[in-house]
């Protein structure tokens, strides 16, 4: 038996990410513990807040940011606007046409990415610190002076349509779209984030500009910077990029909604050897007091390790699938719980049965004591793995701001996991897993009835 306890190598003082507050205008810096990395709250001269972790040992800077509002802001009859706009931000801006813009980005090996999700518009910048001025200038141009030249718009439109054409026969995409459109009829979440073959041709430059004008604003902006940069410089860079944006966003309000169709199963026929199954029900919101208990319950059922119940029952014992997952999806306007897998046609019914019976079993009896202890141990022990690169730290810090968890959350988080009790997980397992699921299946129905297998 190999002990799990530390041996040989002693744990060093973990290099913890400690909170501190800093204002560039009024220089006031909290003393920091030895060997601890500090998260500084930087407020730029123009009053824009960012969280900063200085890391001078690698000559890089990682910046992540997010605005509230993504595909949920698309016009009702034109899904895909946010996605198309974010695809065009680096296709010419300011005095640079598309070609010059890309050449400038590549000449300095700058990495610039934008993305629209259902609720957010996010971006990331990676640059060698030696090229920080050029990198931040190109980011500024993207966010404030994107061209949307017709020739580039048409080119990107063709690219998006090409991707959408591929998706029309992709079992994963089909299962996913059917799920979302059935669960959220008449709601932005029911519309495809990347638009459709019908909608993308109708999107105009005016639609793209309108989305940018409404969403790219300072009041919902969250920023994190990690790397070889000091607070004063970070403040200046932030002002340069984001200082010119309007103060207030103008978002279309989106209704709260619970997923519909729970208890239904929808099958779509597609001639593929492997069927894709997607199940979703009501989840638990990020700010719900039960969220952390739900996080533990999900881990027991189908979370990240090779020891979850679904992994064991679906894959290890029965060999039904290569991948099987479950996840909490706390969106801004709906909390979801989802699970899914893929299996060969004649085992689809059996696989669905196993998934449903495992969900039911966990709802009824909750995790065992051993599962609770191990899950908490995994979730606390693995938290540090989310912070071993600049980009990962930046992404975490933006998410913590979006979720409004506080600058000291990283310090508190493992304590919140530890505090989850058996009574909590039993109660929350019932709450999370007993509400019924909407199931979509895409594949070829078996010619003969399934025989177990």
């Amino acid at each position: 038996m190999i002990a799990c306890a530390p041996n040989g190598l002693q744990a060093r003082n973990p290099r913890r990410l400690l909170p501190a507050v800093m204002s560039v205008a009024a220089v006031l810096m909290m003393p920091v513990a030895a060997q601890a990395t500090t998260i500084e709250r930087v407020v730029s001269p123009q009053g824009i807040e960012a969280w900063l972790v200085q890391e001078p040992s690698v000559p890089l800077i990682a910046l992540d940011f997010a605005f509230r509002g993504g595909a949920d802001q698309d016009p009702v009859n034109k899904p895909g606007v946010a996605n198309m706009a974010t695809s065009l931000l680096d296709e010419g801006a300011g005095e640079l046409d598309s070609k010059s813009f890309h050449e400038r980005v590549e000449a300095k090996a700058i990495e610039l990415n934008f993305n629209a999700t259902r609720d957010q518009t996010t971006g990331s910048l990676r640059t060698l610190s030696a090229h920080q001025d050029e990198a931040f200038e190109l980011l500024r141009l993207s966010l404030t002076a994107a061209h949307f030249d017709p020739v580039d718009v048409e080119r990107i439109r063709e690219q998006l349509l090409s991707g959408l054409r591929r998706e029309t026969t992709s079992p994963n995409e089909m299962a996913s779209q059917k799920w979302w459109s059935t669960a959220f009829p008449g709601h932005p979440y029911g519309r495809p984030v990347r638009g459709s073959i019908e909608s993308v041709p109708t999107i105009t430059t005016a639609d793209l500009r309108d989305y940018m004008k409404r969403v790219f604003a300072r009041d919902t902006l969250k920023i994190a910077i990690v790397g070889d940069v000091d607070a004063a410089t970070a403040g200046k860079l932030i002002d340069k990029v984001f200082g010119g944006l309007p103060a207030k966003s103008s978002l279309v309000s989106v209704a709260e909604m619970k997923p519909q169709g729970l208890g239904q199963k929808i099958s779509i026929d597609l001639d593929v050897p492997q069927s894709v199954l997607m199940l979703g029900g009501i989840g638990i919101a990020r700010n719900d007091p039960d969220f952390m208990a739900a996080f533990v319950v999900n881990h027991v059922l189908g979370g990240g390790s090779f020891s979850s119940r679904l992994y064991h029952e679906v894959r290890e014992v029965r060999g039904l699938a290569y991948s099987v997952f479950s996840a909490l999806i706390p969106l801004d306007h709906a909390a979801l719980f989802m699970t899914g897998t893929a299996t060969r046609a004649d085992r689809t019914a059996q696989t669905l049965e196993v998934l449903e019976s495992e969900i039911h079993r966990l709802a009824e009896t909750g995790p065992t004591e051993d599962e609770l202890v191990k899950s908490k141990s995994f979730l606390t022990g693995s938290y540090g793995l989310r912070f071993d690169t600049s980009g990962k730290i930046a992404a975490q810090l933006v998410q913590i701001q979006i979720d409004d968890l506080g600058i000291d959350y990283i310090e508190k988080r493992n304590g919140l996991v530890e505090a989850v009790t058996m009574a909590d997980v039993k109660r929350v397992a019932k709450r999370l897993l007993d509400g019924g699921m909407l199931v979509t299946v895409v594949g070829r129905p078996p010619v003969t009835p399934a025989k177990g297998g």
Partner: protein
Amino acid sequence: MFSFGSPRRRGCSPARAHPFGQRTVAFRSFSHFSRVFGAIAVASMIMACGPAGAGGPQISHFTLDNGLEVVVIPDHRTPVVTHMIWYRVGSADEQAGKSGLAHFLEHLMFKGTEKNPAGRFSETLATIGGQENAFTTADYTGYFQRIAREYLPTVMEFEADRMTGLVLTDANVLPERDVVLEEYNMRVANSPEARLGEQVTAALYLNHPYGRPVIGWRPEIEKLNREDALAFYRRFYTPNNAVVVIAGDVTGAEVKPLAEKTYGKVAARSEIGPRMRPQEPPPVAVRQVTMADPRVAQPSLQRSYLVPSSTTAKGGESEALEVLAHVLGGGETSRLYRTLVIEQHLATNAGGWYQGTALDETRFGVYASPLPGVSFATLETALDAVIAEVAEHGIAEVELDRAKTRLIADAVYAQDNQATMARWYGAALTTGATVEQVAAWPKRVGAVTADEVRDAARTWLDKRRSVTGYLVKELPSPQEKHS
């Protein structure tokens, strides 16, 4: 659909990644979640090989008495360690008729040993909060754990134990074969692009086992068994055929006694000779394959050329091919994208890649997806002209500089990611390179000249060295063919 990113160039993959996986890799597991929600999380998992730039970490490299090599790459920023073991064996080392065996064994390595029966290693990781996975390619098989630093001795002990102690029974082998078949369904059978990719690679290699898919041919996977796996294991899983790479909050001085105490106790159990695979004869014919699938809603073209790898190339040639791949096909400033997509308006996307990290002769690829109404003939004529232009007239200094800057910057970006650093070194050392060669890679890329890039195009991007694959909804009828 997902691609595995280009080896050596994780950072520079353009925002709109090309649709074909460049490196065939099979994993023990991946997040289904990412597929359903359209992300490409997996892409960050494998891509190998490039190097530390100047000012990079102080790397330790030593060999134990039993022949096991150890590489330690310190990164003390967070108290986390990535521990990997790389075996110098992959699908190209399988015997004919047993395709998929290297990958199948990789799955079976999680089934437990005499000392640590079924699941104990994974259960320990699931308790301490470690991440784990494994992967197989044509040239190497790797296993890794990511853990808080204090657990390094624990995982080293487990990993050393399963180097020789594996216990397999039909009860755990047969369900796992079904798992692998589902992996095959997911990666290949359900994906027309992946199936065409298999056909192109198989047609490219007339003699070398690189022509076989890493995951195997389905009829052969279906017949793999416990005895096959154990025989392969006993032959290739031995300390004198492995490299341990540890990156993160440790030093070589800390690791050495630990390695001696764990891996050092494992006796070498087989002689490992030089890795001699049947080599390719000089290619002579322009080859074309066409695959039809009623699910194809967007036709596409992919071509692979047989070219030297970083291991088989003469000095500087592999680096010139890297630069060439970037100039021809890396992102929106590349020749292929600019010409086919922007200037001539024939394609929705186009690009190219080079799989430099390989023991034997490797592949250089180009691809394009035609706009509706554009024929393959028109598209291919334009694509050929782009390549011919570079082969005849070479590239501009500004293109050369841009490509070199990008490739060299990747080495700096890699220093931010301990797992990337570990993968670079592991992949290089299991495909014939040395630690010194990895470290000197940026310098070698920096020395590439425009003439060398032109010569690489002229010599290697000869159509007779290539196979072109066409993915279509339906095959043209015989009449159409002859008219």
